[in-house]
């Protein structure tokens, strides 16, 4: 029986209808209207948001418990709003209640839903979400949210951020810290925000009550390619150092050594059985002429043969999987890969160590003893006193080169009961150069010639990774699509590439290139639109709130050498652009060299970042760039 009539009526509705007698007051409506002027892109504003954090001790396991209560008043500032309010928790925390109330403090009949949270980046994680759908039927309508989250172990309560998904009029975060707990509240990114701090000591209860208050905070920024939250939002790092229970002092993370000691305790608990891959190590290291070749063979084998599949479930989020498991399964997360590389190198006779590191998504270094300092693990091999870092998750990464995300970051290297801190070397943008050269002439209203591209460093690694993960029978088509930028007016033929499996040398591509529909002729004059790439033309950052972060330092160089047809002259060449500051260098120039028109471009993003401080210069340069891209070259017949 067919059912193509799509209108369905639920005559027996199970939905709960709220008591709607809690209409907004005229004052609420006036407030909502004025807030809409301030926050035109938002639907809901948090009128108040109060966090209240207390500490306790679990007498059974002698761990410090954190009780985190939240009370919020949410107001709809649009004509209507339908939102989802939520909180996250995991195996180390639990949401004890999550209650929605009307403006008159009566409980609203919303049943919170508790579900697993899935992430595209992680194959499996233990994160769960509690949420409820809230409908605000009219402007000025309010709900109140009360929730309580409990952390069974204070080391997992690492930070608290001031901004939320919605703008906040008033936010207070209060910590009640008992004398038996040594706790540091580290103020991060407070500059530029009017955050007031008060502290009161309660003699009776022997507690310090520390409150932070802030007004008029914007919602989380909606910028793409933004720095990690720890760089941009005001927040408090919670550093639990020690506590005293029954007159006995217990150290938590007082300093980096304590953090390392905990990490090491997890590592010591592993049961590696490297003999299981002894054969593979022998195979990889036999017939080699140097130690470097041996290390490379092992490192590249892990890159190429161990798939990245991440599990973040309780302690598995911190403890590496045993090396034989990763080897036998041929998959693992960063910790598993780092440990496999370590164990293989040790079998091969090298000094290899596990190494904890925070990527450039995290603003802290190891001067802050906290679990929020790092999010990644690599392997360090120490050879002739020199430390070389090996990241198994970085596919097509050559030995001795490092991904942008770890460059300049502090690495915590295992060293028995002690540890070593070392900074990862920093590359230059020139190391990631891509260089395009096109020697062309005009034939039958088309631009025809030979092109050559060279990729180095991370521009090469990302190309090789993407290319080698394509279906073999689609690779030709995909390469064509990549080189013609999906533009049917750009014809690519006779591609002659260097070795797509060679991660150590530059990648070179030679090909024949035809640009169609780029020449217009009117009344004997030729109008030429030479630039099909228009790099960065869409990168106006006027509305942006945060630094623009690229995945790696850029160095894009382009040279087009066009032969001017006999008898033609160029009336006017666009003005050159030459702009440079600490973040970028942009150069564009046209030059006529006999009958060859030389069009050169150079774009350097020096530190993989355009900082807010240089936005004005950047935006002006981009506008000039766009204007030049839009200029046609005019070729007229000489008289």
């Amino acid at each position: 029986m067919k059912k193509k009539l799509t209108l369905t009526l639920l005559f027996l509705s199970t939905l709960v209808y709220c008591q709607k007698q809690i209409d907004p007051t005229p004052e609420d409506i006036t407030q909502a209207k004025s807030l809409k002027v301030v926050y035109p892109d938002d639907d809901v504003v948090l009128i108040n948001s109060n966090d209240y954090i207390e500490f306790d001790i679990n007498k059974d396991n002698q761990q410090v418990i954190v009780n985190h209560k939240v009370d919020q008043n949410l107001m709809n500032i649009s004509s209507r709003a339908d939102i989802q309010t939520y909180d996250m928790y995991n195996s180390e925390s639990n949401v004890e209640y999550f209650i929605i109330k009307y403006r008159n403090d009566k409980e609203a009949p919303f049943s919170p839903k508790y579900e697993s949270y899935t992430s595209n980046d992680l194959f499996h994680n233990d994160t769960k979400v509690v949420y409820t759908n809230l409908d605000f039927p009219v402007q000025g309508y309010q709900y109140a949210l009360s929730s309580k989250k409990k952390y069974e172990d204070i080391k997992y309560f690492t930070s608290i951020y001031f901004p939320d998904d919605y703008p906040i009029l008033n936010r207070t975060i209060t910590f009640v810290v008992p004398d038996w707990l040594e706790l540091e509240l580290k103020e991060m990114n407070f500059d530029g925000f009017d955050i007031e701090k008060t502290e009161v000591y309660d003699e009776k209860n022997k507690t310090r009550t520390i409150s932070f208050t802030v007004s008029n905070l914007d919602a989380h920024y909606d910028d793409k390619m933004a720095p990690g939250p720890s760089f941009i939002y005001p927040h408090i790092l919670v550093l639990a150092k020690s506590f005293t229970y029954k007159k006995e002092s217990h150290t938590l993370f007082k300093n980096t050594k304590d953090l390392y000691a905990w990490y090491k305790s997890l590592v010591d608990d592993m049961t590696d059985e490297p003999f299981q891959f002894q054969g593979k190590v022998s195979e990889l290291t036999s017939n080699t002429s140097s130690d470097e070749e041996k290390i490379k063979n092992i490192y590249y084998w892990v890159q190429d043969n161990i798939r990245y599949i991440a599990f973040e479930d309780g302690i598995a989020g911190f403890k590496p999987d045993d090396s034989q498991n990763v080897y036998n399964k041929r998959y693992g997360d960063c910790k598993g890969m780092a440990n496999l590389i370590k164990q293989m190198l040790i079998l091969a006779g090298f000094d290899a160590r596990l190494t904890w590191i925070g990527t450039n998504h995290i603003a802290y270094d190891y001067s802050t003893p906290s679990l929020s300092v790092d999010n990644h693990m690599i392997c360090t091999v120490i050879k002739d006193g020199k430390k070389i870092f090996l990241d198994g998750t970085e596919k097509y990464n050559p030995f001795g080169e490092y991904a942008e995300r770890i460059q300049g970051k502090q690495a915590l290297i295992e060293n028995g009961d002690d540890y070593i801190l070392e900074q990862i070397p920093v590359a230059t943008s020139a190391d990631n150069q891509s260089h395009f050269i096109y020697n062309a002439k005009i034939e039958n209203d088309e631009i025809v010639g030979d092109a050559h591209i060279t990729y180095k460093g991370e521009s090469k690694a990302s190309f090789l990774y993407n290319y080698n993960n394509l279906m073999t029978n689609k690779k030709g088509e995909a390469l064509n699509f990549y080189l013609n930028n999906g533009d049917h007016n750009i014809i690519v033929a006779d591609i002659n590439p260097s070795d797509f499996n060679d991660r150590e040398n530059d990648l070179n591509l030679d090909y024949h290139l035809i640009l169609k529909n780029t020449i217009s002729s009117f009344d004997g004059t030729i109008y030429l639109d030479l630039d099909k790439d228009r790099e960065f033309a869409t990168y106006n950052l006027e509305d942006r709130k945060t630094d623009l972060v690229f995945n790696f330092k850029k160095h894009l160089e382009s040279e087009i050498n066009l032969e001017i047809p006999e008898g033609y002259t160029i009336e006017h060449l666009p003005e050159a652009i030459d702009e440079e500051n600490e973040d970028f260098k942009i150069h564009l120039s046209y030059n006529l060299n006999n009958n060859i028109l030389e069009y050169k471009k150079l774009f350097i993003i020096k530190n993989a970042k355009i900082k807010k401080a240089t936005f004005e210069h950047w935006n002006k340069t981009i506008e000039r760039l766009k204007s030049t891209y839009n200029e046609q070259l005019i070729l007229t017949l000489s008289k």
Partner: protein
Amino acid sequence: MTNKLILSLFLLMSITIGYSQTKDQIKKIAAVEEKLWGAEAPYHDVFEIPQKWESESAVYIYRSVNYYYIRPQNSIEYTRVVRNRIKLLDQAAVNDYSEFKYKNNNAKQKHLYTFHLGLKVIKPNGEEHIVDVKEEKIEGEEETKLAIPNLEKGDIIDYYFYSDMIPGENDLYRFDEVEETVEATYPIMNYEFNLYTEKDFFISFNTYNGAPELQEQDVAEKKKRHYSFEMKDVDENTYPRWFYPYVELPCYKFQVNFARTRKNEKRAYAFIPEEDFDIKKTVTKEEVYTFYEDKLAPSGDIKQVRHFIKEHDFKSQTELVTAVFYFMRHKFYTNYIEAIVIEDAKIMNPFAYYMNAIFFNNDESFVRYFAQVLKDQKIDYEILVGTKRFNGSIDELLLEYNADFVLKVNTETPLYIDTFDAYATINKISPLLENSEAYSLKTTKKAVISEIAHAKLPASTYEENNSKEVANISFKDGFEGLVIDRNSYHIGHNKSDEQKSRLEYFDFVYEDYDKYNSTSVLEFAGKKKDRERHKTEYESLLKKLKEKQQENCKKLTSSEYDLKLDDYSFEVIKTGRFKTGDPLELKEHFTTEGDLIKKAGPSYILEVGKLIGGQFEVNEKTKERTQNVYSQNPRSYTNEVNITIPEGYEVSGIDKLNFNIDNITGAFESSASLDGNTLKIQTNKSYKNYFEPNSNWPLMLEFLVAANQFNEVKILFKKS
């Protein structure tokens, strides 16, 4: 894992559930596994692939699809077992198969479900590693995940899904219809299909487009039956645009019905064979007649319609039928929409006021109701039984769910009535049924279905399915951008698409309220004291929905031109809901930045060809098409672009805007002229037919390429 693979797993898994397996099921799975993976299992010793497929991403060495319909003890049982043995030739294929995810079926149903996944990895040296799925899988609330260990390029992955269902009913049961093409993302060396049934299972089955016929195999036990077919060397799928896979590719369709007794057989809602040992391959028109004779008999409480007719003085049957159709469309459809929106927004629950509402929840109930009206008014009619063109022809109809109904009312000029929704109009039938053969169920004066004959469903022309867009364009100061005022007019099937994508319920519900003197649900539902509040809340909702509609239409227009738009506004001038030929009329205003304007010294170049919107892109690959071309319906697009030439400028290059390609498959024609300070451009593009044989593809390319070329045309605005 690719989306495609996830999708196919989800489809498979949509009937499965992770219940613990019973002892019987464990035994059955073990037997299946022995058959699929044991020493005698087919292709267990094949490791190599033909040279011609060495540059593929992966190759199916063996794909085996098996259906079991059996009757253990007093129950009935369905099992689907699919085994794939695939050689993974590159990293992309390894990535695709490195993770398996499947939805859990958490619905509480009266059926018993069992699911099992068996999986092993075979290394190039022949070493086999059976994955301990029970140990390795991670069972979540919604889905189960499995990361495949030790999988590398060059390996063979050999896995099977076992899905079993024991329905709650055991006298009469209609199993889901199956329609599948014999192809996959990768080439298949050996494809095998098996169907195992027993007594009292009635099978309708046929293969199409070159798939081999189903063969009955010898079976020792009398009550059991086994049918199968095999295929070799099946190329990977490539789905081009305008393509119907069930008409072009080797495929099979079938349905199994269980009927314990003759009485149950008669009750089966499907075309089934006379005897359970027969395979039904086709359905004759006589069988169609017998099946629908009673099922489509007039039925329904038509008091409201009678009342409507009585209140009006219709001059003809055509007028009456037309008016009744639109009355019903409102009374039994659009009249409920506001209530649904109000309930969905949790403003109140108005459904108590609709307890005895008439509502058609399937095609049959609508056809029967309308037939009852026609019978009552003594108007002659027929019911046309057709099938959508992507299913093949009506002669190939096998599955009842592929049948569609169109009412043909034999008024002075026949009227055709099909889809019943908010935009349905008289004489507009599904474009996928148009121009196809059908069966006509003819009725007697007393509206009894009395005979069946062949009939042809009406066709529409490209002129009748037209979109016309008139854009008046001027330059923003100093050629910085464009200001565009666009009026569009859509008729026929082009109108249906636009109505569905652009209109919202409030664009037509209140139009219907006015026409039929209906009252908003807010005027009578809920407690009196709450009504003002409900109205306020509803107005807030309406405001929000109208804002969203503006955003949606802005996105649609932006993607038509592939341009960022600013200062956008959208208005519905006419909904075009009361005649197929009445246009849907829309009005838009927007501006663009200078994306289409290039500075050329003191002059400016405008990419004028882009102002008719994006065109189907012809590239080298599309030119090489080998398949026939299947269009939904003939259609045409007219563009009028009027550009105001800024003072002090003159235009060069107008001659480049003239194209004139017109052949039997379609056309692209354009012209341009100057009228004072206005450049007037007109284009017409048409697709003339429902179907083009591949031999006509070069003719289609002629006008498609012309449209592409027009898209690239630029003109020069030169200082005079």
